[in-house]
């Protein structure tokens, strides 16, 4: 209460300020007069201003008022030095914008919780086979039932089966399309804690009755039903099953992945009756919501015990199986994205540090000109603390102005990041600048302001002797630091750019130009053939074929000679020597469409039908692995791959390797049967002599001509598919390249500013030298030497730091070592050239010093 009264008094003091000032003056004047009257020396009286200030602070809201004063003063100072202010603000704004933009992504993708209540209590539960390093397998329904009834760690244990897509059609559907949907357990929505925005979720009764009811996603509802509430109760046909629509989920609900747009009880599926009793058949992905008071660790322990008991009970189906708990957020985020974002965040932090060093440098240079001002204010009674406070206020104001300029820049950056970011960053599309980002920006700005403000402020002299020397040494250190950081960033960027170029140079094993790829809803092999024939007849089409995908990101089934049984004339391989092997269904002229070369023998074709002996073409890796240095044509191996029966399969051809594991991995063994002995591939490839995308409408017409409800989807070109392989690298390389370019420019500006100032200070010395006969070249050399020494030291420090730190990104590199001498050398040369150019301008200026003017000044 006392405090309140005092504050009230002080606020009154603020209002009565002029009167209080007058009274204080009178009181002190009286004191002086009394001193004079009694013959005391005046100088014993202390600093009148200081006394007044001390008294005034008591009466008024001293600190607040001083703060306000400082603020106005700071704004005035900044306005009076527009050149300084603009350079400083722009420099900082760049740094702040980069940090804000990247943090927005980190915030939206990593920090913001998932859109489910208490999302951190949801976990995925995978079946695992730790001995084989398999961590995330689907779970069989009988095992799921046992988990659900026995667990005490989870309130709800739900599941989904996400391998489904099908054509959505029906009288009320606007246009039939391919829709991804999942089969769910009855408690699916309960476990996630999300309710439909319209209608309801399936009930337990509907689940046990196997009712064909379905809940739609918001976007699908908007697209196909114009957002009409009348959709409830309508019947739609999805994947040839009639469903009654009972609910619509709110916008932004995507589970388990963004592409899924409909959810139906699993009992209504065709596979339910078959899988529900089959303990060996992994069918569903299980997730659960932790019971209150149970943590992830405890749940993991309980489930592991539970799984061990089930393994013992059902050794045949559950042999070597355990359970693997993964928090949902971790599952969705994966591991590569957080790593990449952390690196980007580190990079922008470096950029900001360099910007801070630059501004600190500017402030130090200006501090020299302000020495007189500070001396004056000290004489007038300002304490050192007060002056430091003043300088820090100025820095903070500068930083906040920079934040205001930087924010729109950051918004632009976020927009670009969202649009250009690779597909594999989850939730990237929802990234915005929210309250937390704003707080971050303000925090970073103030911190930056303190950082670059504190250095010059603490360097502020108590007395002015010898400070110029100290100051220029400090400025040199700042420039060295800038170059070291720029070197570090540039090395990282250089290594990633070289990796990117190396990946681009990888031969994918096919010719991506002019190829349209899409999927058709037609499944019947005869109809697929007919569609291919009709498409082949379209103008400009050169080859048509199907293949079951080109890149196997998910990792193929690892098959060795075990299931393969035996290769003619070779002993069985021990299990630990087995290598992955993929069998790729295909049909038509797929090798022509891909532009793949046949190296030996022939391709399987229509002659190789159901009655003919089974044959395959194999890739180079396959041939080298089993018949190194021999002709593989005509060799045989025993397998059940094609028909399910154990039979001898003959190799009839060898084709060029496809980079089937992605561009950055060595291809694994691969074999291609004929479609009559295997089956057609899922992806249609059409090589054209014209623009492939112009063909889409015609292909769609062909498909509709064969099946009126037929649709085509996943439409794109092979070039786009190839580009998506390198999207993340491109993103990384561009961003790091951009950030290091900013860093280099800032470092260049930094050294330029330092030399510019130094030349201005040494005008007289240079004048004398010229007067004494120094040639222009000598002067240039002198200035250049000063600058280049700093740059070289900085680059040297940067190289040492780079050698230590680039190891951290070794896992991101491809085709280049983390300590690649060429990259480091190139980058160092580039940086030194920039430094040289930046130094040359002030050096030239120095040569133009007129000795007479120089000697006369002062």
């Amino acid at each position: 209460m006392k405090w309140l009264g005092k504050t009230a008094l002080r606020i009154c003091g603020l209002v009565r300020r002029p009167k209080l000032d007058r009274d204080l003056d009178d009181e002190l004047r009286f004191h002086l007069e009394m001193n004079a009257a009694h013959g005391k020396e005046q100088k014993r009286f202390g600093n009148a201003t200081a006394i007044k200030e001390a008294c005034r602070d008591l009466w008024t809201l001293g600190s607040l008022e001083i703060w306000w004063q400082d603020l106005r003063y700071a704004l005035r100072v900044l306005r009076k030095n527009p050149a300084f202010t603009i350079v400083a603000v722009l420099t900082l704004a760049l740094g702040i914008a980069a940090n804000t933009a990247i943090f927005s992504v980190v915030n939206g993708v990593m920090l913001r919780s998932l859109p489910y209540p208490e999302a951190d209590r949801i976990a995925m539960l995978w079946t695992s086979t730790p001995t084989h390093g398999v961590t995330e397998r689907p779970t069989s329904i009988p095992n799921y039932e046992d988990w659900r009834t026995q667990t005490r760690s989870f309130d709800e244990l739900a599941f989904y089966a996400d391998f489904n897509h099908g054509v959505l059609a029906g009288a009320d559907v606007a246009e039939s399309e391919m829709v991804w949907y999942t089969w769910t357990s009855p408690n699916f929505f309960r476990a996630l804690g999300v309710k439909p925005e319209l209608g309801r979720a399936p009930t337990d009764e509907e689940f046990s009755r196997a009712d064909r009811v379905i809940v739609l996603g918001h976007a699908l509802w908007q697209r196909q039903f114009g957002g009409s509430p009348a959709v409830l109760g309508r019947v739609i046909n999805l994947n040839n099953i009639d469903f009654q629509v009972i609910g619509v989920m709110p916008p932004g609900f995507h589970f388990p992945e963004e592409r899924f747009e409909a959810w139906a009880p699993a009992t209504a599926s065709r596979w339910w009756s078959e899988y529900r009793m089959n303990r060996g058949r992994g069918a569903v992905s299980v997730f659960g919501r932790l019971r209150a008071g149970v943590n992830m660790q405890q749940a993991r322990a309980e489930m592991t015990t539970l799984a061990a008991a089930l393994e013992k009970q059902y050794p045949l189906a559950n042999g070597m199986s355990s359970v693997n708990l993964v928090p949902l957020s971790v599952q969705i985020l994966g591991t590569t994205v957080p790593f990449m974002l952390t690196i980007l965040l580190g990079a922008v932090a470096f950029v900001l540090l360099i910007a801070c060093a630059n501004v600190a440098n500017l402030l130090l240079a200006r501090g020299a000109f302000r020495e007189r001002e500070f001396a004056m204010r000290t004489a007038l009674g300002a304490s050192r603390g007060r002056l430091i406070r003043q300088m820090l206020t100025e820095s903070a104001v500068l930083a906040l102005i920079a934040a205001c300029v930087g924010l729109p820049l950051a918004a632009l950056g976020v927009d670009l990041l969202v649009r250009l970011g690779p597909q594999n960053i989850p939730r990237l599309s929802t990234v915005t600048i929210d309250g937390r980002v704003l707080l971050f920006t303000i925090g970073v700005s103030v911190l930056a302001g303190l950082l670059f403000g504190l250095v010059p402020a603490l360097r502020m002299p108590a007395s002015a002797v010898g400070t110029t020397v100290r100051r220029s040494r400090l400025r040199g250190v700042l420039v060295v630091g800038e170059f070291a950081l720029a070197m570090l960033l540039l090395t990282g960027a250089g290594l990633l750019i070289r990796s990117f170029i190396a990946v681009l140079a990888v031969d994918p094993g096919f010719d991506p130009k002019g190829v349209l790829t899409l999927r058709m809803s037609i499944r019947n092999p005869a109809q697929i053939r007919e569609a291919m024939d009709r498409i082949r007849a379209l103008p400009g089409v050169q080859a048509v074929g199907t293949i079951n995908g080109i890149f196997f990101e998910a990792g193929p089934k690892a098959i060795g000679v075990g299931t393969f049984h035996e290769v003619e004339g070779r002993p069985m391989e021990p299990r630990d020597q087995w290598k992955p092997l993929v069998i790729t269904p295909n049909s038509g002229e797929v090798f022509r469409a891909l532009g793949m070369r046949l190296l030996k023998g022939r391709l399987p074709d229509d002659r190789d039908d159901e009655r003919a002996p089974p044959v395959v073409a194999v890739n180079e890796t396959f041939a080298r692995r089993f018949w190194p240095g021999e002709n593989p044509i005509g060799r045989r191996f025993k397998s059940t791959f094609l028909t399910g029966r154990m039979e001898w399969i003959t190799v009839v051809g060898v084709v060029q390797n496809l980079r089937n594991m992605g561009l950055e991995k060595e291809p694994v063994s691969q074999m291609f049967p004929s479609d009559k002995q295997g089956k057609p591939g899922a992806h249609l490839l059409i090589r054209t002599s014209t623009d492939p995308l112009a063909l889409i409408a015609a292909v769609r017409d062909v498909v509709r001509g064969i099946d009126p409800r037929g649709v085509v989807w996943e439409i794109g070109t092979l070039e786009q598919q190839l580009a998506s392989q390198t999207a993340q690298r491109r993103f990384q390389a561009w961003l790091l390249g951009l950030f290091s370019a900013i860093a280099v420019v800032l470092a260049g500006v930094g050294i330029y500013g330092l030399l510019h100032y130094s030349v201005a200070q040494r005008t007289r010395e240079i004048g004398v030298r010229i007067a004494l006969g120094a040639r222009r070249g000598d002067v240039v050399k002198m200035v250049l030497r000063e600058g280049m020494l700093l740059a070289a030291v900085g680059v040297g420090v940067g190289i040492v730091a780079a050698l230590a730190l680039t190891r951290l990104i070794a896992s991101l590199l491809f085709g280049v070592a983390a300590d690649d001498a060429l990259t480091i050398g190139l980058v160092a040369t580039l940086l030194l050239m920039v430094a040289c150019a930046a130094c040359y301008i002030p050096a030239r200026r120095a040569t133009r010093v007129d000795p007479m003017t120089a000697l006369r000044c002062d």
Partner: protein
Amino acid sequence: MGRDKSTGELVQGTLDMLVLKTLTRGTQHGWGIAQFIHKISDDVLRVEEGSLYPALHRMELEGLIASEWGLSENNRRAKFYKLTAAGRKRLATEAESWNRLSGAIARVMQTA
């Protein structure tokens, strides 16, 4: 900052006590207070203006003393301070603790 140590620098708090004590003799202005302390202490204690006036204003804010403008002995307008009830109470407690402290120090100095 080389000041003559023997003139005695007043520790904050001690100055407050001395000012309060001085004002028990009746209202007084700042200069008068400083003079009184100086004289009574046989010129040992010198009150700096830089400490005195902020202290007076602070004590006034705390309600230990009150002020009014009046005419000085030489007919000048001067600000006079007087003790309030709260000030009297504060003086009593401070004087007591001072006596205890100085007594204790004196005893230590005599025996050691």
